């Protein structure tokens, strides 16, 4: 059929009527709607986010490969060699106990990453469940859950964490608990807001009228719609958790010596600030780098995924 059209076309006069061709759907310009596409697209355009990911990957590698790439043991003290300036033997010098800074930085990365990730995951899970319940299960549940969230949020997070550590004692597990408690509130609030919006939509009503259980509606129908916001919150929670751990360790209520936590390293060496500034400042710089990288990524995520920011 098409070949006939083409053959006849050139033989037509200018004024002969034609059956006008169908316009092609401009499929290429349809908005990239899927979450995954949005994320990938962000990294292609947002250079800062890309830099962030690269930094994070490098730090993860350093953490995982710490035993392999470190020349020294992070815990062995060498008091004769303490506070050595950066040199060929010790690329970043040694700390007040003679331990190699670079090695302790690598091992500290492990702490920072683990402490950044795990409490964030726990906080997100708790926050999501609480938010869903508050948004969906009616006024009483909403009131109770949100008051508890308000209590956790009204408090300066650092103080609350300190009090929790005081109560439970200083250990890694307790640190996780403390960090999770102070961070779940924001997630709960956001998820609750989205749940309240979504439950009025038709697809929820349709599911309800089919007799679907409430828990299924919450987790199968509403939850997937919250995922873009959750991704944003997650990537922004991690740097908060890292900072909080560093701060707590600095104050002495977080990780305990001889652990190689970056925050601890700063506090251990703060008295050396005037004599050997690098020992105190370098671990702090590492914290900043990791947090900054996560913030770049989190910002990129938010630009891509936050529905309220769509132009």
């Amino acid at each position, binding site marked *: 059929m098409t070949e006939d059209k083409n053959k006849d076309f050139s033989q037509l006069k200018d004024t002969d009527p034609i059956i006008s061709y169908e316009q092609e759907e401009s499929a290429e310009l349809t908005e990239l709607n899927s979450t995954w596409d949005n994320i990938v697209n962000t990294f292609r355009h947002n250079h800062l986010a890309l830099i962030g990911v690269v930094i994070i990957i490098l730090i993860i590698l350093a953490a995982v490969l710490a035993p392999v790439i470190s020349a020294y043991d992070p815990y062995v003290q060498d008091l004769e060699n303490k506070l050595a300036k950066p040199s060929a033997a010790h690329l970043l010098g040694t700390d007040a106990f003679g331990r190699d800074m670079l090695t302790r930085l690598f091992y500290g990365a492990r702490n920072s990453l683990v402490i950044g990730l795990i409490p964030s995951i726990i906080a997100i899970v708790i926050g999501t469940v609480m938010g869903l319940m508050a948004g969906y299960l009616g006024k009483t549940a909403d009131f109770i859950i949100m*008051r508890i969230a308000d209590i956790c949020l*009204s408090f300066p997070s650092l*103080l609350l964490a*300190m009090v929790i550590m005081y*109560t439970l004692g200083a250990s890694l597990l307790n640190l996780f608990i403390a960090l999770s408690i102070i961070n779940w509130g924001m997630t709960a609030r956001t998820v609750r807001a989205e749940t309240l919006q979504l439950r009025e939509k038709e697809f929820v009503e349709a599911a309800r009228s089919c007799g679907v259980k409430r828990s299924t509606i919450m987790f199968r129908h509403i939850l997937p719609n919250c995922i873009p916001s959750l991704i944003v919150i997650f990537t922004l929670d991690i740097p908060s958790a890292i900072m909080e751990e560093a*701060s707590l360790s*600095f104050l002495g209520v977080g990780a305990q010596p001889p652990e190689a936590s970056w925050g601890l390293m700063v506090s251990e060496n703060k008295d050396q600030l005037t004599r050997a500034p690098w020992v105190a*400042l370098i671990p*702090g710089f590492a914290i900043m780098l990791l*947090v900054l990288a996560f913030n770049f990524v989190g910002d990129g995520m938010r630009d891509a995924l936050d529905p309220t920011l769509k132009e």
Partner: protein
Amino acid sequence: MFSYIVKRVLTAIPILLGIVLLIFLMLQVVPGNPVVVMMKEKANPAVIANLTERMHLNDPWYIRFGRYVWDAMHGDFGISYKMKNREVSKMIMDAFPNTVKLTIAALVVAWAIGIPAGIISAVKRGSILDNVVMTFSLCGISMPTFWVAMLFQYVFAHKLGWLPVSGFSGFQYLILPAFVLGWSYSGSIARMTRTNLLEAMHNDYIRTARAKGLKESSVISRHALKNSMMPVVTMMAMQVAGMLSGAVMTETIFGIPGLGRITVDAIKNRDMPLLQGSTIFAAALIILGNLVADIAYSFLDPRIRVS
């Protein structure tokens, strides 16, 4: 609007009570007998029993809680374990003004830097200036307060000698800590201001203002800014909460005898009444701050005020 205020105050009270209860449970109930905790089981059991009886610690926890709240409402937060003669309430009241000075100074710094930066960024959106300012802001947020403190101490106090390293007997001792604390907050203020201003500029009434013949600077200052500043007021309240956290760091490093510092000391010394008093006080401050911010917001937004 009056009913709005009343409603807000009424919601705030259970939250405060909830916090007090939570702290009480965490500090007095969970670790066990406070006397034992304080004396680290060194003392003679008879002495422990005696003290326990004298401090009414054998009563059930809810009675102790009730008593605590009653005393607190009368301003009695108990006696410090460490400084055996000093009342906790007095210690808090001595320390509190220092924190206030620090926080206000830091807020001034943060706002003086943050808001103009945010406005410039929004107005020159997409330009290099915008990108630089925003990246700087992000860096500011990513720097741990204690690190900034030490960095500034090193550069400004030690190397350049412009300002004292620590201590608290005069105005110049406030400058460095205020800058340190204000620095990271200026970042988030700049970002928020930029976002809010851009959002306000997208509104239709901005188009109307231009169509009237208003010059662009007036469009921004008269129409956009007022609308975008309202969320900033709410942000102020959240900032105060965060600042108290940051103040803990700053006070510790710069040796300022404020609320944060005594809290940290209380933890180190296992001084339970002091810890309890100071954390509750901090929480009350924040709730109060939130309340004030909400009420201020309702004043500014005619949609709430005139209904």
